[in-house]
Structure formats: structure tokens, C-alpha cells
């Protein structure tokens, strides 16, 4: 079975402060991890994926297999980062690339 846990439902920071959204996963095989974001009144969209090892909008996430974590980080948060963030996992043993999602973290960046 695969499971994704986002321990914080709500996270509030001030503009310019660092932000870290936590994600832990449970999966026995080799997972593919993603972060999806949903801005207000917009549809869910991919933010980044661990295999790309890229920085998107200043966000990075490193897969730590030892700690089974895939935390999302940004050194200096901006107001436009306020959104709902979902961590998701795709397992090699499941068909296609069906995703298992965490419950999401609502990030608010205050001015």
C-alpha cells in the first residue's frame, strides 16, 4: 500500500521568510514524487517532480529515501505563493501513473 502524509493542513509565514511544506510517504518500492499546486480559483497543476531535480518559482524538493520524505522548500516566500499544495506519489507497481495524494497544505504568505 502507498500513503502520503502532509502533517500541516495550514501554514502561515510572512513575505520574505523561508517556507517548508512537509511531505512523508510510505511505499515499499521505488516511488516517483510530485508536488501539485492549486491557486485560488484555478485548477490543480504540477509544480515539480523529483526526477527533474529542478527549481520552479524558487521552490525545490529533494527526495530523501532514508527518511521517506519529499519536503518542499523556498528560501524567500512571496505573497503569490499563497495556495493549496499537494504532495503526490506514483508507484512503479501501480498501473499507469495513478497518483496517491496527501491531504494538502494551505500556505498563506502574509505581507
Amino acid at each position, binding site marked *: 500500500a502507498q500513503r502520503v502524509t502532509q502533517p500541516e493542513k495550514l501554514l502561515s509565514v510572512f513575505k520574505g521568510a523561508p517556507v517548508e511544506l512537509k511531505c512523508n510517504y510510505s511505499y515499499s518500492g521505488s516511488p516517483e514524487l510530485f508536488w501539485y499546486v492549486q491557486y485560488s480559483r484555478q*485548477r490543480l497543476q504540477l509544480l515539480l517532480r523529483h526526477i527533474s531535480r529542478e527549481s520552479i518559482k524558487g521552490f525545490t524538493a529533494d527526495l530523501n529515501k532514508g527518511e521517506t520524505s519529499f519536503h518542499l522548500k523556498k528560501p524567500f516566500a512571496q505573497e503569490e505563493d499563497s495556495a493549496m499544495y499537494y504532495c503526490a506519489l*506514483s508507484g512503479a507497481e501501480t498501473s*499507469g501513473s*495513478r497518483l496517491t495524494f*496527501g491531504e494538502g497544505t494551505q500556505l498563506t504568505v502574509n505581507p
Partner: protein
Amino acid sequence: GAGVSQSPSNKVTEKGKDVELRCDPISGHTALYWYRQRLGQGLEFLIYFQGNSAPDKSGLPSDRFSAERTGESVSTLTIQRTQQEDSAVYLCASSLVGGRAGRNEQFFGPGTRLTVL
């Protein structure tokens, strides 16, 4: 080009009625997914279509739920004899290919908000 579209955007129905939700994927995308999102929860996988292969129905919560897809185009999700616990946002996503390939990014539609009274 146009993204994934879904209709209706909102649906209110009475308990016991059947509902049909529609998804139009991005043209050329062979893989199509349905997810359900209950209030305050993450997305739950329901069903996956890949080309002409047999669909993966392992996420469907009961036999009241069914889905069809015609070739690589439109998909419909049908819920029979709706119950109040079926109230949720139903999201459709499509990707160029399925599987653990580099082109498997899922593009989501805006969702259909279903309310069962």
C-alpha cells in the same frame, strides 16, 4: 490549445438519482484519470484509461460507480443511486502517455462539484 474540460461544473441531485459527469481530455492524450476529492481531503484515485487497454477500475468505491471512454476521447463517469457520501469534487486528468515515462505529467480539469441532497 484547450486544456481538460469537464461538465457540468456543478451538479445538485437528490439521493437515489443517477448522475453522469463528462470529461474532455487534451487532444492526443492517451491516458485519462478520474479522481474524487471530498471536502478537506486529498484526491482519491477512481479509474484510469490508457488507449485501448482494459481500464484500471481498482479505485472505484462501489458498483454504483462506472466509467467509460470512447477511444482516446471523451470519458463519462456515472454514479447510480447517488448517496450523500458521494458529494465531492470529481476531477479528471489526462496525460500524453501513462506509465513511468517522462511525458506522464497529468493535466487536470476544473472539476465537477457534486452535491447529493
